[in-house]
């Protein structure tokens, strides 16, 4: 296999950073490209594994939906929770504009 398979370009790093909502400066983009490429090379054994008849494991033990009785119980105090927010207003978290112009 070619070494290129593990190569992550700076453009791909910028794309993934956008998906992850992570602002990276140019130096970080360059370093991330080489480090992620090295990590991908290291985990390649997993990618090349023959797993034709192997089911995936998402969780160490079988888990099912866990439901509690449908009765009202106290939850965290709203004021106490909002007090920890960077910005709150009228019992809500306040954020900057969400709707932007179309990209």
């Amino acid at each position, binding site marked *: 296999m070619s070494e290129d398979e593990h190569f*992550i370009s700076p453009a*791909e*790093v910028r794309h*993934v*950073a*956008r*998906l*992850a*909502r*992570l*602002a*990276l*400066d140019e130096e*970080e983009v360059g370093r*991330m490209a080489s*480090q*992620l490429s*090295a*990590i*991908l090379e*290291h*985990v*390649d*054994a*997993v*990618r090349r*594994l023959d*797993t034709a008849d*192997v*089911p*995936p*494991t*998402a*969780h*160490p*033990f079988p*888990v099912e*939906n*866990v439901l*509690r009785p449908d009765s009202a119980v106290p939850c*965290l*105090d709203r004021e*106490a*929770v909002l007090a*920890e*927010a*960077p*910005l709150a207003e009228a019992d809500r*978290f306040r*954020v*900057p*504009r*969400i709707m*932007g112009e179309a990209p």
Partner: protein
Amino acid sequence: MTATPAPEFTSLSEIASAVSSGRLSARAFLSQSLERIRELEGDLHCFNEVTTEKAMADADEVDRKVRAGLDPGPLAGVPVALKDNLCTEGIATTCSSRILEGWLPPYDATVVSRLRDAGAVLVGKTNLDEFAMGSSTENSAFGPTRNPWDLRRVPGGSSGGSAAVVAGGIVPLSFGSDTGGSIRQPAALCGIVGVKPTYGLVSRYGLIAFASSLDQIGPFATTVADAALGLQVVAGHDPMDSTSLDRPAPDLLASLSEGVSGLRIGLVEDFLSDGSECVEAVLAAGEALASAGATVDKVTIPELLLGLPAYYVIAPAEASSNLSRYDGVRYGLRVDGPDTETMNARTRGKGFGPEVKRRIMMGTYALSAGYYDAYYGQAQKARTLVIRAFEAAYRNFDVLLTPTTPSVAFPFGSKVDDPIQMYMCDLCSIPSSLAGHPAASVPFALNSEGLPVGVQVLAPALGEAVMMRVAASLEAAAPREARGPVTP
């Protein structure tokens, strides 16, 4: 720089008995810990915060209960320290990250409330690699913790503060979290006992999530008996954690001194190839258990070597999802921007350190369109292969032994710029994490430089009782000087 042995801790059960009887006060045990903090914290940097005033109030409350004739609990007056990713109501919980600096959780983790109910006294929150990602505490935003055995070396990680605080003789019991080895590896590097329980045995409610299918909380102590008691107190079903096992917690203390006669013990050859001091310790541990009456054989389980690469896909994938909540909206840091998406990205870019960013990027990549099946899907199947291989091995063995770590405590700076080298620290500890099995590190030897070497005992799911029995036998066979506490 050589550490000297420190006086042994009074055992947890002796502390509780002295405090419950009124013979000694919780305040007196707390004072010892606070005095030791004054002496050593400048060198060790175990803590993100020492909660002196709250601790004094908590200790006084324990003593008041005793005077009132009430039962103060099985850990009455035991000073305890908690990794700073366990939520403590009204006490800053940072995960050693700038992004959570100053945040005051509005609730206690279940582990915290169980410890309080048992009479333990919380003395502070311990340092960690940011969001529990790392093997040295060098990824803490607040500076590294130093190893009490040699201040030039790392204590391991990510629960390095919780390991050093016990190894340095400050508190006899602490708790950390272990996702791929973050309790066992620092326990080994600091010459103490560290236990990762079966997944689901201890509630994760209030543990700030890193990789939810792997994270477990567990104890650090200088002796197997103290670790067993600490685990016993926090174990058991919790309706607040839907992955908590709904069954009675195993009794770890009743059978602790029953020995290993008749047990079948496997030495995992796949981790014994490099002839290092850590490998020699496992071979010696096998001989000691054979002398104590166990049947000891070697076993090859090559699938376990898939653990490391599978983990470094699965854990970052889960982390990238879990850490999406740090978006500058509900808690912690916010860096403003003209719109919410820019605010989110700037907040995260400024608030997270390099290793956390790397794992978020790796995880996002592995989950992104076009790569999901090749990386995340394949890693989940590799996880199945690891679990199946363990199942086969446990048909022939009651417990397995491996080194806890490939090497002893390493000098600061020697791995921090090379992520792969740092990830290799978890080679032997990851397979049990992927399988959800319990594992414990027991201090067993000192290397040629006088640094501690740990041996790891692995058991199948809910096999804690037999695992701790074997750990107790190893402890009995190990030289006293191989374990803490020490004074740097």
